[in-house]
């Protein structure tokens, strides 16, 4: 699998300004969140990036992309009809090729030399199938994520063959259908916001969009069908993701980036000073 394209979704209702926020990246340079995400993709070997936006956001996003603007194709999602629909909008952009799928409001910090996206892309290249990044998540967070049921791939740590995909399952469903041996009790594999997907997914999504007739479309449903059609893997990456849309999400993401980068000592020093000065 030779992967050259990435799709970043940024058309969500509460999501449109998040990728435009500025942060200091691990290299000590101030960038927009969008630029950091694009660089994550580029570091994984991607050459072209499609960004799904709401109509009218193009100028702001083009500016936010900074030096990478030339590699970007903007795709507009006319109506907010769900994540699946947003991805489906980029079908012409991907044009039958496999693609890396990222979300505009998640940042990743890797705990090994390779970036998270790169780890995922290399795995997809070696297995020649769709792979979703997943992370073990406590059941109390199930209302926020899609989750997968899988079998372990023998002999490989952190690699799973997906059998089921459920969007925001209840713990009752999760316990009956998504239990994966080897995880801590009450933990399930939830999506990490990063996938490498084959063109089959675009075909499935197109079918779902048509069938939905103007109603919302989930990516999870298409992925559930994908698992029935072709080999579909999930993997736990060496790294963490940060949702900058959550409460204090931007702050946490910034701290995570800073503590993992060149300015670690400076930031730590600042934090210690803050703590020392706290009187109450």
């Amino acid at each position, binding site marked *: 699998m030779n992967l050259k394209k990435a799709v970043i979704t940024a058309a969500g209702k509460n999501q449109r300004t998040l990728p435009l926020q500025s942060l200091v990246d691990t290299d000590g340079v101030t960038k927009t969140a969008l630029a950091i995400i694009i660089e994550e993709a580029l570091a994984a070997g991607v050459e072209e990036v499609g960004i799904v936006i709401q109509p009218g956001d193009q100028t702001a996003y083009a500016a936010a992309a900074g030096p990478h603007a030339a590699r970007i194709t903007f795709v507009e999602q006319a109506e907010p009809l769900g994540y699946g629909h947003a991805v489906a909008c980029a079908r012409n952009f991907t044009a039958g090729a496999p693609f890396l799928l990222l979300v505009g409001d998640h940042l990743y910090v890797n705990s090994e030399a390779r970036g998270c996206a790169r780890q995922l892309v290399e795995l997809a290249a070696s297995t020649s199938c769709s792979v979703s990044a997943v992370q073990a998540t*406590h*059941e*109390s*967070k*199930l*209302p926020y994520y899609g989750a997968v049921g899988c079998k372990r791939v023998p002999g490989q740590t952190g690699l799973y063959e997906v059998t089921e995909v459920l*969007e*925001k*399952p*209840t*713990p*009752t*469903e*999760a*316990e*009956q259908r998504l*239990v994966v041996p080897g995880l801590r*009790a*009450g933990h399930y594999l939830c999506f990490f916001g990063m996938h490498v997907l084959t063109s089959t997914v675009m075909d499935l999504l197109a079918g779902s969009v048509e069938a939905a007739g103007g109603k*919302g479309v*989930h990516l999870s449903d298409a992925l559930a069908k994908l698992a029935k059609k072709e080999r579909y893997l999930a993997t736990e990456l060496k790294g963490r993701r940060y949702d900058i849309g959550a409460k204090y999400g931007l702050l946490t993401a910034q701290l995570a980036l800073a503590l993992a980068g060149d300015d670690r000592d400076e930031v730590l020093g600042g934090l210690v000073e803050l703590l020392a000065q706290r009187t109450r």
Partner: protein
Amino acid sequence: MISLLPLITSADPAVRDQSLDASCRVASVAELLAACDELDGFRRKAENLYERVRALFFLSAIHRFHLPEKLRSGGPSDRSAALIPFRGYEQLLHRRFEEAIDTFLALQAGQGPSDGLASALANAYHRLAFQTLADQVRRSVRSVRGNQWMFRMGHPADQPLRIRPELLRRGADGAYPILRELTPVRMDLTHSAWSDIFFLGMDFPEGAKVVNVSVDLGVHGRDARPRPPVSAWLRVLDEPVLRLTSVDLGATADITALGEVFDFAKDHLGLLKAAVIASGIVPPGIEGSGQSLADLLAHIVGPGRGLEIVSCVNDIPKGSRLAVSTNLLGSLISVCMRATGQTTGSADKGDVTGPLSEADRRIVLARALLGEWLGGSGGGWQDSGGVWPGIKLITGVPASESDPEWGISRGCLMPSHHVFSADEIPESARQALQDSLVVVHGGMAQNVGPILEMVTEKYLLRSEAEWIGRKDALTVLDEVISALRRGDIRALAAATTRNFRRPIQTIIPWASTFYTEQLIAKAGAAFGDDFWGFWMLGGMSGGGMGFIFAPHRKVEAQARMQEIMSATKRELQHALPFAMEPVVFDYAINEHGTWADLLAGDDALMPPGYYALTVPALVRQDRRELPLARRAELDTFGAAARTRPELRGLVQTLFDVLLPRGRSESAGGVPLADLLDQNGFDRAQHEQIREDLREGRIGLAQNRLRADAIIEDVRPEDVSFEDGAREAGEAALRAGEVAVITLAAGAGSRWTQGAGVCKALHPFAKFSGRHRTFIEAHLAKSRRTSRASGTPLPHVFTTSYATHGPTERFLAAVDNYGYQGPLHLSPGKNVGLRMVPTARDLRFAWEEMPQQRLDEQQQKVRESLRAALIGWATSAGEASDYTDNVPLQSMHPVGHWYEVPNLFRNGVLARLLTERPQLRWLLLHNIDTLGADVDPALLGQHIRSGAALTFEVITRRLEDRGGGLARVNGRPRLVEGLAMPREEDEFRLSYYNSMTTWIDLDRLLSAFGLTREDIVAGDAVKITAAIRGLAAKMPTYVTLKEVKKRWGHGQEDIFPVTQFEKLWGDLTALPEIESRFVVVPRLRGQQLKDQAQLDGWLRDGSAAYVESLCEWE
């Protein structure tokens, strides 16, 4: 040497299914003890749950039935035999069964086996076996996938459930929509010999099979058409509370604290609470976490919001044997699960309404099992059947490697359901069934718990007849299915009748009652060949039952069965515990199973009964203070009440609730005050007792003898044994010097748990092919004695306000059972008025007396109930008159001490003396001492002894609690359990008082300061003074009794009430009366106190012994 291990461990079913009884019958005491040693060693090591449990049941049965019999045949009671150690008894109370067994076994090893120790071991093994089984079911309930997460959740922030968005969509007027779940109940077509008990299904899944039908229901003549009888309603509230309402029980509560959700017995909302917990809204794992309910609700519904859940069962009476409460639990759980997106048609993936998928139904079942366990009850595994549609076959499932039960039990906890399609059972057959079957509620409400235990035990013991019965029941199931497929209802009726007559009654004779037999006989007489058969609906007959008729006579049969049941109930209402008037049901097969719809806008109304309950309080509030949604709801309700025909009666109901009619105190016409007057109520004494109670001068703690009293076991010279004075006895009988007095004034509070029926008239068991009452059994013994001696024996039954009228009418109706000797009733002349207990006495009874701890969850429920009852006593007024019940339940008899003096006062003794001037000896015994008869040898011994009173005592078994024969400060006397200063003293006493007393009339009269001439002369003043004089020397005991209050549709609440009594055995404390004590065989002296004893009584030879004393015709 016999070995019983192969019966448990053999791989060959032919060996494994052999009966224990057959193997033990031939063994000697030594062989049995050796076999027990081997079994006990085995059960301690056994890894397999069911092998362990079977070994425990084997041990229990050997100690209950086989050892006592062999010990008995070894000679007369040995008074050096080991007594039951108090330490072991305490261990039993605390459910430390293993330790108790070790204590008893150690003593047995040292002192040898005894009847008492065997009874203690039997009890300990029996209870350990059930505990082991119950623990396993519980573990399985928790480990069902889909239930586990709820036990991990301990903080609101961990709550993963979210309300479905459609329930948050307000209407234009601000009201939230209502999610309504309508659920049918289930009828069990095959019964299959209780194969739906978990313990059976989990050991013998191949034999666990039932055919069960989901039905809509209506009360014939009351409801226009059958509807799903069970409904659950849910909506969002603008307040952070959990508002629970049970329309049928008239209870509603706003719950604001997490702890209250787990307080099951505080009010009548236990079932709703169990559903809220089992559905994961307030998951079981959060109990005791100290977290806030509002926070938890905020995570599910949103900040500042709450949930309202309402249950309704369309006034279907309790005890219908249609699993109404389990299906209501299922309905509530289903509506809660739908509302929180836990059904697969959920979370943006589909619709919240409509039927459930099979996967959803299974999880509702798993949750209902959890809910039953939480609530301390326990329905069978087929009971949630109403959640499924139509007619289905429910079968046990052998455990496979992926099940949590694998390696532990042979079967899974949850059965599988096969819903019959229209191809398998055609529409015409379904219609034919409905055209022939008349479903009724006979009106009896009985506790089936003991029956389920008996069934389990007999199954695990593979008792010969019962095992054949079980196999027979499986063939009945095949017949039923085949008849259904063909639509041959006549064959179906034959099969269900055979089921009832053969396997069911082979396994449990008590499944039928005299009432049921009467109904079947009368239906047969009225409809002849058009009465096709009887169908037992559930655990026991007398409540929900089916009668099958030729279709062209069904309508007529419905009316006729109502008449038959009502008339039969009237005849038997004093003899059997009826909870309600019998009803006939209309029903229809429900082909959907449970079903939900969303009510919005003008339809967003709760069931009508809900408004009768809530509107009066709402209209009293300032309208402006009501939340927006409430105001909108009231408007919608107001409009609907004016226009909708189905709400027509509601305005009147509301009016009645707002302006209640004056409540009349009388029931059955006679007001309480009149009844008290008629029955010799002593108001001055009553007020004195009240004051003493309030001041703390009397009470449970004050019943006891002084703490420094020395209580010792009697010495050999204090008792005698039967010594062959038969001839003197026979001579007295021939001369007509003897009469029998049976104490029948009691309402059998233990027998029917306070239902207030006459125990004497209860047709409790079959002898010579018919159900016989206690009275008939006692008369049959006197008949035999009369015939043997050639002189008719006078027989007196003492009665009370509660039993006199019914007993008199009953004896007239049966023509005194043809008894030829003189037969008299001796009406009571004293009565007391029950009082609300003091909190002090309740605490003493529940906290300071040794208590039987219950199973963990049941104990929690009991503690919650007791806290509520102490609250009730305080708010109702301690030691105030208990009048909030029917008059007969408000009065109480004042103890059996008065029974003999009553004979002096009411003229019965005078009549006896006039008829038989030579009368000199009386035999006094309790109604439940069935083995007592006028044994000439014992009579002769009494005559020869010259004593005023001879009391019969028996060796003590574990269940013989409540005092005994003791030396108190050096003098032998009977001591009541209430008077024991220390609980453990009782366990040092070898003998238990059977209450049976031989009386020398003249000596007794002289103790009163009376003569037989005084009695015959009927000098009321002198007699009354004499009685009062002796009564003053007798201690007065304050006791707590449980009394049932009936309300609603077959609902019953049990309240503890205070009453006082004076007891006969205390006469032995008086030095002026010479009392002697004779040790009699257990079969003669034991009492039948509790219906749960019946089965053991039948199996251990007691029934046969009684039968041998009787002549019925």
